[in-house]
């Protein structure tokens, strides 16, 4: 498979820088009480953005865990817009338009992995050409769902790319307590599928690996497990205090291999990037985010929206509950 062009890499870097910048602003907004618990993206930008760019958003799907959305600009601006809405606690934040092939965030870890297999299988049944990429963490890889799904995908030769984002931590649990495996890609052989580990801080390498896996899936070659190794550079979430458990020297070392800086250096050397470009991207990213936050904060809900979209038609009991709710509930909710 061809290495991505530097132009492509530059687009990826723009997405990465925007993601990093917006994550920082969101962190501050959480600290100000304007948004809910947030899972920062720092350290995962190359993996998510490059993986997204290796897909065709008009045909392929991206099924995320919960850190990904900031870096999925390639799938359309609605991803960020809805993510912001999600973060202010609005229910519509989990709805993307039909045209955007990205699933809602998944909070119940690893449950999206079998969904990916079913979706890919269903697309093949419907003669659709796309593939499904599903992303999950090193911690999530211990869940039974991942095993059941990878095994099923092997049998069905489903067009799936399993993207295991190994950031060395599951909240406070280090990889050494998560598994004794030398590499998570080693799981693949147990399902008769190809498995590969790539440096997740290397956007080009991630792009390559996903591109190759995608090509294999599209040509009927079945699923691939791609493990990307990265390091979680920030807290698990805004509710977490990593100084309790992350060895400072490890974090220090990881910071020296920051994926954003690495790609920036490469493109700077190639004459495609400089401080000015970065400043522009950052400013635009903040500007966009602030507008989206304002817009999200301006939206409200009515209490009985809590009953919507459960069933197509309310049951008798639900209809009564809706009635009671309209009579008794506190006025519509807003951001935290």
């Amino acid at each position, binding site marked *: 498979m061809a290495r991505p062009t530097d132009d492509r890499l530059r687009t990826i870097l723009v997405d990465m820088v925007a993601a990093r910048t917006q994550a920082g602003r969101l962190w501050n907004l959480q600290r100000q009480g304007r948004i809910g618990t947030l899972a920062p993206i720092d350290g995962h930008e190359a993996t998510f953005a490059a993986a997204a760019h290796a897909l065709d958003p008009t045909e392929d799907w991206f099924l995320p865990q919960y850190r990904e959305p900031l870096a999925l600009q390639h799938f359309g601006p609605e991803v960020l817009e809805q993510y912001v809405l999600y973060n202010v606690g609005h*229910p*519509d934040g*989990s*709805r*993307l338009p*039909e045209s955007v092939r990205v*699933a*809602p965030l998944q909070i*119940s870890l690893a*449950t999206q*992995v*079998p*969904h*990916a*297999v*079913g*979706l*890919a*299988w*269903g*697309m093949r*049944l*419907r003669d*659709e050409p796309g593939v*499904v990429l599903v992303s999950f963490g090193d911690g999530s890889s211990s869940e*039974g*769902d991942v095993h*059941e*799904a990878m*095994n*099923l995908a092997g*049998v069905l030769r489903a067009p799936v790319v399993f993207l295991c984002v190994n950031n060395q931590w599951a909240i406070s649990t280090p990889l050494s307590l998560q598994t004794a495996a030398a590499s998570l890609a080693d799981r693949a052989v147990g399902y008769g599928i190809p498995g590969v580990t790539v440096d997740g801080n290397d956007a080009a390498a991630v792009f390559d690996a996903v591109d190759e896996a995608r090509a294999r899936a599209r040509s009927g070659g079945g699923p691939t497990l791609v493990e990307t190794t990265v390091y979680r550079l920030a807290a698990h979430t805004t509710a977490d205090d990593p100084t309790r458990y992350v060895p400072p020297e490890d974090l220090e070392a990881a910071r020296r291999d920051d994926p954003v800086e690495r790609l920036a250096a490469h493109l700077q050397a190639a004459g495609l990037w400089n401080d000015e470009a970065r400043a522009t991207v950052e400013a635009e990213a903040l500007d966009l985010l602030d507008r989206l936050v304002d817009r999200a904060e301006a939206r409200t809900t009515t209490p009985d929206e809590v009953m*919507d*979209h*459960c*069933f*197509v038609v309310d*049951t*008798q*009991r639900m209809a009564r509950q809706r009635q009671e709710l309209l009579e008794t509930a506190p006025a519509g909710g807003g951001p935290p």
Partner: protein
Amino acid sequence: MTGTSELTMLQAVNEALHVEMARDERVVVLGEDVARNGGVFRATEGLFEKFGEDRVVDMPLAEGAIVGSAVGLAMAGLVPVAEIQFLGFSYQAMHQIAGQVARLRYRSRGRFEPAITIRSPFGGGVRTPELHSDSMEGQLANMAGLKLVAPATAADAKGLLAASIRDPDPVVFLEPLRGYRGIRGEVPDGDHVVPLGEARLAREGDDVVVIAWSYQVELACRVADALADDGLSVAVLDLRSLVPLDLAAIAGVVDRCGRAVVVEEAVQTGGFAGEVVATIVEECFWSLEAPVVRVSGYDVPYPVGQLEDAYVPDEARIAAAVRRVLEVA
């Protein structure tokens, strides 16, 4: 296509699957041993031969993946009908059932349509090994976003399964093991749909109503018929679907009779019979002339063969409860 045929409940289920697969090519059947073997009870017999390996799929032995991939199939616009070989093994998939199937529409605010049916045999009386006989209606009913259907006749098995498959909401469809061959009746040929959410008055009666679902309706009807010889007028209400629950039908018959017995096979504490009692209290407390009585399994796990008869509510226990409710002055 307007005649009827006498079928067992098993044949009725099988016929519904044949009709629905022929009617809608989006329907896909998946589960353990459902294809080449036609299901361990033969509920899916003939589907593989008729509709092929793309639409009738023997799955690896992993209930979580069966249900989890059904969610993905639904996201792709298909209409999966997943079989859990015995309901007790749905625990292995509960994170997908309660957390994913039931919430796919809610989470996505209507973007994804969880037109998923999960079929599963359940209930006792046939000396199965552990966990093959467990009744879990109370638990499933508490998982918001799931419909829960439990037919008691062959005709309803066909008509309600058809309705479940066609329903855009997810349905857990419970098939009584004892009824597979033990219940038979006239079933309309061809297209036959019984709407979800409407209870059925299986026996008219004025003195007391026995409220039940699934195989327990059969037992209740036998009790009603036997007590009729003693001059007692015992109504039997077959709930047919537990979610949605037909509140009006419950209120109507309890208002008339003033006395009620609720029968279920599950563990009593936390079982669905409790929900029915609470519903009666809410809907028609002032009509009650006696406390509602529950006839349930006991508060222990479903037992092995030799203890089964002691555990499973039988006609004698139902009849005793009916008499007890009637004795209250």
